[in-house]
């Protein structure tokens, strides 16, 4: 069963040329996939369409079996809550502690602190940030920030995890360890799509790769 389906999706910014053309892509539930392509190929644009931050100019995107083109604004958060997102630049909120950043998806759902405190602490323990729960992002290293961002993305057990260049700001050794986290998450049933242009990573981790070239996708 597919969790993501693109049918003839095209995207252009304003009146510019079409940067994504006739994309046809299907991700099966529970799969682990890479998305690769040269810089500027449109990986981030594709990811932004997946987490509903960008609308395609044509074609149809289906998430969790539902066509997103007719999705009302009020329903968008319901879909986003089933998706976890990790960015290359982490996008942690500087004025919140590690604990508060990781707890954010639960907090915006209206959950009480007492209901999620133990879960967040356990997850921070899992990613090795238990001793940094009260630290602000400014004092964390790149790897620690990325682990906090991953923890934030998975705290609510998303069905789909999207990671846009998650290893772009960490050294190769740490990149592999982060990949192990993603693989563990995948083993728990989360569908994972990681956008990267790190060929070493693609060679090391054996997983299906979607290549984005000239605005079109091909499976490798």
């Amino acid at each position: 069963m597919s969790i993501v389906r693109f049918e003839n999706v095209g995207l252009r910014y304003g009146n510019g040329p079409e940067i994504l053309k006739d994309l046809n892509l299907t991700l099966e539930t529970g799969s682990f996939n890479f998305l690769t392509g040269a810089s500027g190929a449109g990986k981030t644009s594709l990811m932004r369409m997946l987490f509903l931050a960008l609308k395609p100019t044509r074609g149809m995107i289906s998430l969790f079996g539902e066509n997103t083109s007719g999705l009302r604004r009020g329903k968008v958060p319901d879909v986003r809550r089933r998706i976890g997102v990790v960015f290359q630049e982490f996008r942690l909120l500087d004025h919140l502690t590690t604990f508060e950043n990781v707890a954010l998806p639960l907090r915006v759902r209206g959950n009480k602190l007492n209901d999620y405190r133990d879960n967040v602490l356990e997850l921070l323990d899992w990613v090795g940030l238990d001793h940094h729960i009260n630290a602000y992002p400014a004092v964390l290293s790149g790897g620690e920030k990325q682990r906090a961002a991953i923890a934030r993305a998975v705290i609510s057990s998303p069905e789909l995890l999207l990671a846009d260049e998650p290893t772009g700001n960490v050294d190769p050794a740490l990149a592999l360890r982060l990949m192990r986290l993603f693989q563990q998450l995948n083993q728990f049933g989360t569908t994972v799509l990681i956008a990267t242009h790190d060929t070493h990573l693609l060679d090391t981790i054996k997983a299906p790769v979607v290549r984005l070239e000239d605005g079109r996708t091909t499976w490798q």
Partner: protein
Amino acid sequence: MAINNNAGAKKFDRRASGFNDRGGAKFEVAGNGRSKVIPEATAPHMTLMTAMAAMCYLAVLAIGALLMTDTAVDNWTSQIASQVTVQISAADGVDVDGDAEKVADILRATTGIADIDVVSPAAARKLLEPWLGEAGILDDLPIPRLINVSIDKASPPDLELLRATLATEVPSATLDTHRRWQAELISMAGSLTWLAIAVLSLIATAAIVLVIYATRAAMEVNREVIEVLYLAGARDSFISREVLWRFCLTGLKAGLIGSMLGFCTFVVLGLGSGRLSEPVKAFLYHPLDASSANYAAFIVVPVVATVISLITARISISRVLKAMF
């Protein structure tokens, strides 16, 4: 569409992640663990509060001036409405004193008249002295006689009938009911009321524009934070609540400051009015007293400021969010 709310952390094995080899030492969350999601310092609340407080102060002044005018006009009109004047013209061949006696008798016999005061010739001369001087010119002038008549407001007399009776019995007497002055005063008070309403409307419009500007600035400064909140699954209502309460508080604080300053201004003016003469105080400047109506007028300003902040910010935030994402 179902929402998966189960926290995934429970499934994870600390050792399997390869990131934690400290043996599971326990660390506690410092503080309340729920800092403000939208940082407060980034929004221009102090600027907004200062400007809003100034406008609330102006609003209080406008309301106070309106109340003072209203009180003064009430005084004038009630004085005018409770008094009429009969004038006996000192024309050739008229026995002014005799006619004054006749008019006084008619007035005493008329129901609805509370009291009459026949102004003596000496008193009438005193009234004219400030304009004509004491050089003896008044001895050569025919001075009319005046009779001030106080009306019983509970059962006033039929003034048209009284006018007709005087015209028949004492042709030299004319009745002045001051109705024209009363109408002009009421008209002037109406104009001042509309002027105050126009001033208050302008102040409210300026406040709305300020809140819109401040809300947009706050949202723009926090665009990154808001985008992260959206990606975390936040609804518009969550983000709106996080921003809104601060604007609400700013409006309330500004209203209270403006109202207090306005109140102090009127207290100072009231203290300063001690130097004014009684007629000026009674007819032109009537200091605000500590009546419940006046207090209510001062309290209404912070309430309105809060409501304006709340409604404007809510609409503005909603529009900005729709335009942003």
